[in-house]
């Protein structure tokens, strides 16, 4: 019994051990392949800024996965917010902030729309979010028919700021830390625990007075807002817009969530795991690039990593289950 409280085992149970291990091992390979990778400015470009979009998309997907759903709409939201910003961004600082706000709002609204349809009609989230993703992707194509650059802004630009740094500290890192802090606060709030309750067992949550519908619609809304942020991050990173850019983040977000130790089906895992997973996925791509693999290998690697991480995670679940069985503690919910 006492063994359960040992930090190592607790880490293993939280699902964070695997993404941490992935990040450490991959980082070691990366540093040995490219010695100056640990240089702060290098680290900022190749690790923090490169994984920012994916980390935000994965964090959004993680919330939906935690409540037991699946969300394919990240690609659509990223595409449409990227297109909106590319076409409308510029002018005064107030105007720039207005469009950033609009981008986040579009994300939240499309998330709420998904949640509402899934809940009211009791439909499968996969098919609903597939539909909305294509609708949003269509709107992105309408707004921005072909890739374009962002109009340069005189003076302060919040979008460019997102991938720059203050006194050597990358803003991207601060954004991710803010999201992490937000998650830790949310996890301890009423909404957070209700979120986990809904993901663990909808019926039990409903019987104990949780308003399952509101919580899951809210979860979809938060996820949409994070996709909106991801759209802003990609605009900042590429300082331009491409209506077909979003689709590559769908696979990456799933890989990040699985590497991050979240259980598909809900109720287990954390957003921190998803963010670490996104960093791991990004480092894999960097390593392949440094080792001189052609770019198509990175797509293959994402797919293989997805399956590999699943294997490792389920091996750990089996391991934990066996340990617990030895201590004759009944396990509920792990199957």
């Amino acid at each position, binding site marked *: 019994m006492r063994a359960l409280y040992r930090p190592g085992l607790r880490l293993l149970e939280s699902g964070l051990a695997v993404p941490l291990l992935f990040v450490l091992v991959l980082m070691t390979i990366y540093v040995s392949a490219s010695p100056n990778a640990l240089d702060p400015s290098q680290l900022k470009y190749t690790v923090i800024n490169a994984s920012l979009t994916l980390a935000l998309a994965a964090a959004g997907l993680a919330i939906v996965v935690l409540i037991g759903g699946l969300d394919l709409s990240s690609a659509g939201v990223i595409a449409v917010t990227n297109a909106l910003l590319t076409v409308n961004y510029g002018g005064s600082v107030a105007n720039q902030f207005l469009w950033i706000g609009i981008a986040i709002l579009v994300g939240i609204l499309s998330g709420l729309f998904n949640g509402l349809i899934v809940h009211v009609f009791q439909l499968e989230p996969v098919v609903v979010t597939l*539909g909305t993703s294509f609708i949003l992707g269509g709107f992105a194509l309408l707004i921005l028919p072909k890739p374009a650059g962002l109009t340069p802004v005189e003076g302060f630009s919040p979008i460019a700021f997102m991938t720059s740094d203050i006194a050597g500290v990358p803003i991207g890192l601060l954004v991710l830390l803010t999201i992490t802090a937000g998650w830790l606060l949310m996890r301890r709030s009423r909404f957070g625990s209700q979120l986990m309750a809904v993901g663990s067992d909808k019926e039990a949550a409903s019987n104990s007075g949780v308003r399952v519908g509101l919580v899951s619609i809210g979860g979809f809304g938060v996820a949409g807002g994070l996709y909106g942020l991801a759209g802003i991050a990609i605009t900042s990173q590429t300082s331009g817009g491409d209506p077909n850019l979003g689709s590559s983040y769908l696979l990456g977000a799933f890989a990040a969530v699985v590497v991050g130790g979240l259980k598909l089906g809900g109720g287990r895992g954390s957003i921190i795991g998803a963010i670490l997973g996104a960093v791991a996925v990004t480092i894999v791509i960097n390593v392949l690039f440094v080792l001189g693999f052609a770019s198509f290998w990175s797509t293959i690697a994402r*797919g293989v990593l997805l399956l590999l991480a699943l294997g490792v995670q389920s091996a750990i679940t089996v391991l934990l289950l066996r340990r617990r069985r030895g201590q004759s503690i009944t396990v509920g919910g792990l199957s």
Partner: protein
Amino acid sequence: MTTTAPVGEKNLRDKTSRLHKPQRRGLLDLGGARGAVTAVWIVLVLLYIFILIFRPGLAQLSSVQTIVVLAAVTAVAGLGQGAVIFTGGIDLSIPWIMSSSAIVFASIAQGEDGNLIVALLAAVVIGLLLGLANGVGVTRFGIHPVVMTLAVSAILEGGALGWTGGLVTGSPPPIVALFMRGDAGSFPMVIPALLLLAVLVSFVYRQTRYGRELQAVGLNPTASRLAGVHSKTIITSVYAISGVTAALAGIMLSGLAGQSYLGMGDPYLLTSVAVVALGGASFAGGRGHFLGTLGGALLLSALITVLMTFQLPEAIRTIAQGSVILIAVIAAKVGVRPGKRKNSDGIKSFRRSREKAIL
């Protein structure tokens, strides 16, 4: 039933069957999807009348032929997607199975009719193996269908890009183009083949052991496993079917386009799901029929053609297709609710009649 039932039970069965009228058992017994399938064909007829009145140019035989041929590709891809969705899964690897098997097909055939059989076999076997990989991952390793098929799709996407280097290699044999497009003025053979496929699928679904077991698994995998159905094998087979139909759809598309290229299957992720949704399938599994998918494919193809006559940008088409998915799943859900009640009434009346028979 080969075992002889006790006399009392036999009497009971005779009585109940007289009291409770048995359901229709023909090829057209569509299960829970009956209402939705009827609805999609009625909408199709209405759309045709609309075309006759407002776009008479589209009602010509040649235009209708084009609409049906385009629908055939979607319907074949939708057959596999529908089978997977019937078991409560979803196959996101269809676009890249289509593209990669079409690319293999074209590069083996090299535009020669003599190479048709070898190329066809190679492409179908590739589709089969990829589908089996999906199925084994889902059933034996317990991987979520979305994740498994997404991973396979990514591996294929990268693999196809690496193998071809982004170039168009080879070309499909002319006989496939003839099959899809027909000779000047003649009828493309794909249309009767599609009809034959519809009859065949309806037959397998309703009259064979495999079809019955598939229905049982779709309705309740646990119960059917306890009843002695090899649920996992059935579900694996469904992904294999989806792989094969995706390969066939890829070959059909390459015949239509005259070449195979990267990303040629991309639009079929959306359309294969859309036509299954239009056919009234339930994405939780257990409801749906190929006749609905076929009607959905014809409807979607006609709808897109009508939209194209309004000279709208391609983006509008994507938005329309996405909306079609949402509207169709919502309509099927709302439309089915009263049907369910009727069904449980039927069970109640059956129980009542059984009690009477026992008394």
